[in-house]
């Protein structure tokens, strides 16, 4: 009990201090608009990657259409904000939830047929879904067609994005450490055994997948209200792959791994800008090297924790018998 409270206090103070530092740096203009933009892109990628990790890392179902869910959330949230027009953060939160629900509903629609089957059907179906969404966005009037959706009020800044991101990760962490989370992980480990100990596998596969879709929708909603312009081209297959790469690199089944990888892989292409055309080459080479030397991802299935880190740092001293 006290252990649990101690962890909670450590985590909250850590998050708060990160927030305060970043907030002050922004206010002091040490972090300029360009860096702030990268930071927000990082945070949105954290939401997308951690949510996809629930479906792919914890549940073990390969999903290739995360950008599609993100797009559904982004467009729905943007359209809600544009039509309702209540100013302020409350409007944003309502839009985000509605965007998330729309994406989650899409998750139910494609999840029910795909997840009743065992195997990799979901990968193919989500792949198709992502493309269908993209093509629809190009051709519908309500989404602005190929010109994109313009004039979305800029309701999301660093503050909102940061706290929504924290909330999403906290919820995902809680889910993965509950009985529902254990049921989800048991399906990844062995679906037949999970059924044989009484886990209703279809329900839990659907739960994991729909939660992932929901939070992808929330992430999309934030993206819409930060960018103020939505271009259907950004939600293509490569975007889905990008998110998947983050999940694999961070470690399937590690939320903190996804966070680290999301930040790293969002900053990396920007940091490599000075190499101009060699940028993608370096990016790919880095991924290959990473996968050769650490095939399980940065953290594997472990979670990063301050206490765990301290324990690790202390250990060699004790073993070596120094001091």
């Amino acid at each position, binding site marked *: 009990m006290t252990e649990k409270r101690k962890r909670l206090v450590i985590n909250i103070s850590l998050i708060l201090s990160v927030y305060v530092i970043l907030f002050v740096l922004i206010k002091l203009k040490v972090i300029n608009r360009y860096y702030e933009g990268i930071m927000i892109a990082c945070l949105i990628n954290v939401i997308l990657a951690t949510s996809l990790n629930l479906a792919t890392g914890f549940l073990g179902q390969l999903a290739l259409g995360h950008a599609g869910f993100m797009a559904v959330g982004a467009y729905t949230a943007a359209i809600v904000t544009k039509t309702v027009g209540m100013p302020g953060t409350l409007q944003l939160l309502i839009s985000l939830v509605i965007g998330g629900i729309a994406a989650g509903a899409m998750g139910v629609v494609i999840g029910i047929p795909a997840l009743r089957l065992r195997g990799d059907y979901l990968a193919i179906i989500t792949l198709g879904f992502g493309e269908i969404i993209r093509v629809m966005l190009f051709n519908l009037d309500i989404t602005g067609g190929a010109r994109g959706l313009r004039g979305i009020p800029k309701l999301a800044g660093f503050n909102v994005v940061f706290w929504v991101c924290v909330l999403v990760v906290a919820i995902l962490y809680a889910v993965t450490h*509950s*009985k529902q*989370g*254990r049921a989800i992980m048991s399906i990844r*480990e062995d679906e037949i055994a*999970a*059924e*044989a100990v*009484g886990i*209703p596998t279809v329900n839990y596969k659907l739960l994991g997948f729909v939660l992932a879709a929901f939070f992808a929708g929330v992430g999309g909603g934030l993206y819409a209200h930060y960018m103020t312009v939505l271009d259907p081209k950004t939600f293509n297959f490569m975007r889905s792959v990008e998110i998947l790469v983050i999940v694999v690199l961070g470690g399937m089944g590690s939320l903190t791994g996804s966070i680290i990888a999301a930040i790293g892989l969002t900053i990396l292409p920007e940091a490599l800008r000075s190499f101009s055309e060699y940028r993608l080459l370096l990016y790919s080479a880095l991924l290959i090297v990473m996968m050769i030397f650490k095939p399980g991802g940065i953290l594997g299935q472990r979670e990063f924790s301050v206490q765990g880190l301290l324990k690790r740092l202390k250990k060699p001293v004790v073993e070596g018998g120094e001091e």
Partner: protein
Amino acid sequence: MSLLSCKDIGISFGGLKAVDGFSIDINQKELVGLIGPNGAGKTTIFNMMTGVYLPTEGDIQLDGKTIVGKKPYDIVRMGAARTFQNIRLFRDLTVIDNVKIALHHEIDYGLFAGILRGKKYDRAEEKAQVEAMELLKIFEMEEYAEQKAKNLPYGKQRKLEIARALATNPKVLLLDEPAAGMNPQETQELMDTIHFIRDHFQIAVLLIEHDMNLVMGICERLIVIDYGKIIAKGTPDEIRSNEQVIGAYLGS
């Protein structure tokens, strides 16, 4: 009334009749062995009893209710738990989580309570922890609780699978070749464990086995099948001298 009863069940895969006219009645607290040569259809019968396969003929009743057409996870909740011939543990999860997953339906809180982490969550999780540890203690595995299941030695993995099945609180336990791959000493230990389970948990056990010594040693009743059909039934002594059985095993 018998606990688990199969009446004339059969299943065909295409033109092949894998099991034909198989009947069995298992009473409470009984230890029954199901034996037969390779490919006789033993595991297929298990798969029908646990809802993995749908029998094409006949009826299976558990505690007076038919289980034909029910999903495996529903049948578990009705009281029939099983282990697998090739161990199927949740390999990358800890030993205690393996057991807790089987306690799923006893842990009483919803998704939102799990996210909000209130009192209910704490209480339920603590209770699950205690229950899971108790089960591990019975199998003398409490020291391995936080280890990953895949890192256990083979014999312990078998035991963990049985512990996990017992966590679902079954009325009848179906063990599919529990002694496969074990050395004589481990087999002896396993026989003691199975006896102990029956007495301690007061449940019926149905056992598939190749190892004749094991089944002869502990089963009260044996059923021998070959080519999907029952060729003999009776006490171990009767089976030992049954010519048809000797023929099936040694070739006649």
